[in-house]
């Protein structure tokens, strides 16, 4: 018996990076996984990979900033698996640019995906979880929701928004058996980080290395499972010591 035996988990941004690593770990623990991503090619490849491990998996292409697309995620999930137990609300974007050069349209796009999209997907999950009597949500925030950094104003502001969204939703549904927590990664070795700055970011981390997507997945599993039954509204930092400095 896995820790998530027969539970239905939706993972946004599930085609690569932390989302894909979490999908692999979740199916090992017995979950049925719905992969949501904008990238159809990678999403379908990931779906095939999970199925080849004899897991139940479904890919749904969606833009999480579109209400219609988000509605469709839940329609397809319910049609296929009948319920939603876990949401890993993980899709996000980010780009480094000095703030005085940041076009308003780019600010809007970042906040739209990283905050509005997270809300829309969480709202959909809560609606389903209220019907079935509960569930768990893990939002991907960032250590840059806790601390500032130059050159990423829109991303950092949106991630701080995710942290307080997490607190607010956690409190709102604490007595309805829906737990809401956030993962706050430090510097992680994913395709988002350009190869030429990896060494520098590893040196800036007290553990002197980047985190691995698999290590994030393990923290997400803890937050999604009953092992964290008394934890909600919490934003858990997994950063190799970065924010303790």
């Amino acid at each position: 018996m896995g820790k998530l035996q027969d539970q239905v988990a939706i993972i946004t941004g599930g085609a690569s990076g932390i989302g894909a690593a979490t999908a692999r770990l979740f199916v090992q623990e017995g979950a049925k996984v719905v992969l949501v991503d904008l990238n159809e090619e990678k999403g379908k490849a990931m779906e095939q990979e999970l199925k080849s491990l004899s897991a139940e998996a479904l890919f749904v292409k969606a833009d999480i900033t579109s209400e219609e697309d988000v509605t469709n995620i839940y329609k397809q999930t319910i049609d296929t698996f009948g319920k939603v137990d876990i949401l890993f609300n993980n899709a996000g974007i980010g780009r480094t640019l000095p703030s005085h050069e940041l076009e308003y349209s780019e600010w809007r796009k970042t906040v739209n995906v990283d905050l509005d999209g997270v809300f829309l997907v969480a709202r959909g999950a809560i609606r389903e979880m209220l019907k079935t009597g509960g569930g768990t949500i893990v939002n991907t925030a960032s250590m840059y929701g806790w601390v500032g950094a130059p050159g990423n104003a829109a991303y950092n502001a949106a991630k701080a928004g995710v942290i307080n969204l997490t607190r607010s939703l956690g409190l709102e549904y604490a007595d309805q058996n829906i737990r809401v927590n956030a993962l706050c990664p430090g510097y992680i070795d994913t395709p988002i980080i350009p190869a030429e700055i990896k060494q520098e970011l590893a040196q800036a981390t007290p553990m002197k290395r980047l985190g691995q997507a698999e290590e994030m997945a393990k923290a997400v599993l803890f937050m999604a499972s009953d092992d964290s039954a008394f934890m909600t509204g919490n934003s858990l930092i997994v950063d190799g010591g970065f924010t303790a400095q």
Partner: protein
Amino acid sequence: MRFKDKVVLITGAAGGIGIAAAQAYAKEGAKLALVDLKQEPLEKAAEQIEAQDKLLLTANVSNEEEVKGFVQKTKDHYGRIDIFLNNAGINGEFHNITDQTEENFQNVFGVNVMGVFFGLKYVLQVMKEQKSGAVVNTASNGGLLGAPGMSAYVASKHAVVGLNKTAALEMAEYGVRVNAVAPSGVNTEMMRRIEQNAAGDQAEEARKAFEASVPMNRYATAEEIADLMVFLSSDQASFISGSYYRIDGGQGATSV
């Protein structure tokens, strides 16, 4: 069996969280060194723990020599220390600051701050040499927010959070991780004492009020705290260090 043959040292082992944690590690194959102030409660606690190997050690954690002693004895007996739950703590007397006594403050700081510091000092010497290990310090939500009447306890637990971050940074390059748990009220004997201290013969009312202040409307169980300690000290948490993890039924979401 995530902890097969791992050596786990636990202070405050006769208390509710200590016992639950010892049981959780033992179930996954760990060897235990259990420390508490007095022999009899420690033996009683040990009876509830089925482990392949358990070493019982009495010590007052506020005494540096005694801490040095139990760390040395653990190392002599098992040869290493893989996981350290720096968990012993006391709640102290209930006084507003205007009526707080130096004696109470010194007592609480002796156990909760000096005890945690001594534990870190001697266990980290062992782990640094091993180039591996994981420490979980027991802080409290009182390490992050205030509580009327509990100035000594609250200040001491804030100190634990600072020690936790600093120890993590000093140890990062040696492959030793240091984290803290920050529970709200846990349904243990300590909570019975806090209820008594807060409200005397109205302790049952105090309990209801404390539980109602938690968004999940209840105390944590000792087992739930143990689950978090197990997670933080396991390989699942290999990139987590210097963090404090709230476990508080949502209470922390209403405070800074």
